[in-house]
């Protein structure tokens, strides 16, 4: 069996790409570096209490009292571990990577849901993106973007895109066919159907995808630390190389605390809490109608009657 030089071809291709469009990688690198640095400055510069208050309020509005309490305690613990700056560096890396991954993944998911050919073409690509060992991404990432935070973000994005695509496609496909037909039957344009019917009804699934994107991005933090990205990953890598159990435990714990916060927060986005639903119902009912002041008890009646 002759050796097929697949690896050599890939290596040649990377070399060629690098020589052909070096400005492209420079541009990407500069933009990402700027965005991550800016966000990190914004998160890490003010005293921790400022952002802890903001995070707690977010948790309260989006999810409720439980998560708000958790948020206060978790971030105070991070501060006491003296890992606040590293945690904020990691958070900014995760946010940038997740936003970009979602910005790429969700539209591809929409296309895949609408066009069978896209779905068929995209599926094996997603499969290989998810199963290729993470470190394999790192090699070309270093070639293209050098060391530091940018190759970490790029590798993180590549790793985090697939669930965004998959859950968006799934969510849109699962929208009740009759409801889509109803929009068609009343003359809605395809774009209107997407905006007014498919996306809103697929939102829980899409948000579950965004949640997965964020969680995967967070799991890539340590890997990014290997490439020299500052943050909790760097602390973990240092602890591993120095066999420092104490530091490893503390930084690992900080990653988990951050992960739980982000997970609960984004999971709640797809399913509005009783509180936020109540707020929304109230604001909708009061202004124009005026006359229809219904009590909540009243509105429960037909639901029981139908059961």
């Amino acid at each position, binding site marked *: 069996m002759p050796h097929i030089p697949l690896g050599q071809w890939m290596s040649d291709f990377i070399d060629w790409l690098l020589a052909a469009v070096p400005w492209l990688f420079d541009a990407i690198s500069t933009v990402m570096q700027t965005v991550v640095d800016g966000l990190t400055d914004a998160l890490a510069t003010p005293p921790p209490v400022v952002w802890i208050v903001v995070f707690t309020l977010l948790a309260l509005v989006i999810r409720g009292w439980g998560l708000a309490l958790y948020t206060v305690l978790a971030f105070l613990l991070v501060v006491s571990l003296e890992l606040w700056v590293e945690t904020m560096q990691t958070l900014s890396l995760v946010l940038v990577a997740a936003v970009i991954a979602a910005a790429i993944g969700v539209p591809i998911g929409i296309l895949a849901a609408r066009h069978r050919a896209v779905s068929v073409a995209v599926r094996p690509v997603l499969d290989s993106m998810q199963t290729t060992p993470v470190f394999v991404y790192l090699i070309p990432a270093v070639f293209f973007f050098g060391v530091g935070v940018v190759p970490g973000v790029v590798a993180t994005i590549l790793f985090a895109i697939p669930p965004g695509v998959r859950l968006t496609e799934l969510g849109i496909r699962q929208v009740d066919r009759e409801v889509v*037909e109803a929009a068609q039957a009343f*003359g809605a344009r395809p774009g209107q159907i997407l905006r007014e019917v498919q996306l809103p009804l697929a939102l829980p699934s899409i948000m579950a995808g965004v949640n997965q994107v964020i969680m995967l991005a967070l799991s890539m933090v340590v890997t990014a630390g290997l490439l020299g990205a500052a943050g909790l990953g760097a602390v973990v890598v240092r602890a591993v190389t120095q066999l420092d159990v104490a530091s490893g435990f503390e930084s690992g714990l900080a990653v988990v605390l951050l992960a739980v916060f982000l997970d609960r927060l984004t999971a709640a986005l797809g399913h509005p809490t009783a509180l936020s639903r109540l707020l929304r119902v109230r604001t909708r009912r009061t202004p124009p109608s005026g006359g*229809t002041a219904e009590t909540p008890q009243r509105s429960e009646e037909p639901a029981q009657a*139908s059961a």
Partner: protein
Amino acid sequence: MPPVLRATGLTKVFGPREQEALRLAGEGVGRDDVLRRTGCTLAVHDVGFAVERGELFVVMGLSGSGKSTLVRLLNRIVEPSAGTVEVDGQDLRALSDADLRNLRNERVSMVFQHFALLPHRSVRENAAYALKVRGVPAAEQRERADWALRTVGLLDRADARPDQLSGGMQQRVGLARALAADSDVLLMDEPFSALDPLIRRDMQDLLVQLQTELHKTIVFITHDLNEAMRLGDRILMLKDGRTVQLGTGPEIISAPADEYVADFTSDVDRTRVLTAGDLLREPRMTARLGQSTGEVLRTLGAAEANGVYVLDDGQRIAGVARDDLLARAVQEGRTAVGARELVADYATIAPDRPLVEFIHLVGKHAVPLGVVDGSGRLLGVVPRAAVLDALAAVPARREG
């Protein structure tokens, strides 16, 4: 006037080898064989009908008979493989995408089996959906939606969300959405099938009432023959995507085209389908005011009957002449049938009333139940034998 909606040779094949499946179907190959030989599903084959303005046209068939596909072919949500659909003489296949959307928005509305409301919008916003798509100003949207919701009796729930309503109420919203669009044609895909029997009955009543006020042209899909008989001016029986029979309810009951239809009709409550008009027969005899009493008495004797309708010059019922009173009149020397010979020993019914409403009157009097029009003219009679025939008969098979 041309029909509002006309389908001609309407055919739909789902699957990869459409042309071959069409050819086989055209040769009369059955649905199962088409599937086995081409892998294509012959959902609807060569269905044609015309629906007149104001008609409630029912398409009736079991699940898998192609009725849901058929109704979606009528507004081209499903693209026909062959055949044409015309709305007011306009061929749907000749329309551009934009024109087709306008037609759906303004002239053909649809009501769905599982309501298909937007769960994240209020009842009012759902009702106004067609108007919003049309780009109608907000105030007018609201006005039209509120009118439609009032019409279906749901205006007080306009600010609720669909999931706060019961199934019957949700379908009222579905109906209001179609009414607010103010289109002539209403396509209703098993609209009441997902509802409890009592609610279903209410909704049928509501539809009948709306129809008397609004005179829409309706294509109504159902798998329930009782519902079909109750609502439909005409019924198209669909089986395996093909038309089995097309006719009025009583026509289908009295002369089912084949075993399949006969099976269905055996379950139907005939007393609600058959009307006085369906059962009426020519009276065996009538008498006129002023006719000879002796002559009428002899006719009665020959027919072994106890009484006869006496009509005035306008064919209206003046009363009933009974044999005992006629005999006394002859004895007492009155020769012409007049007021003294007449009794009110009879009952009448309008021709459109169903049997269930008059069955208790049949055979109660000296003369058979009279069927009269609005001005009291005698159109015919319903003798007891006619009722027994209609209820008991194994329906006569239609020839051919």
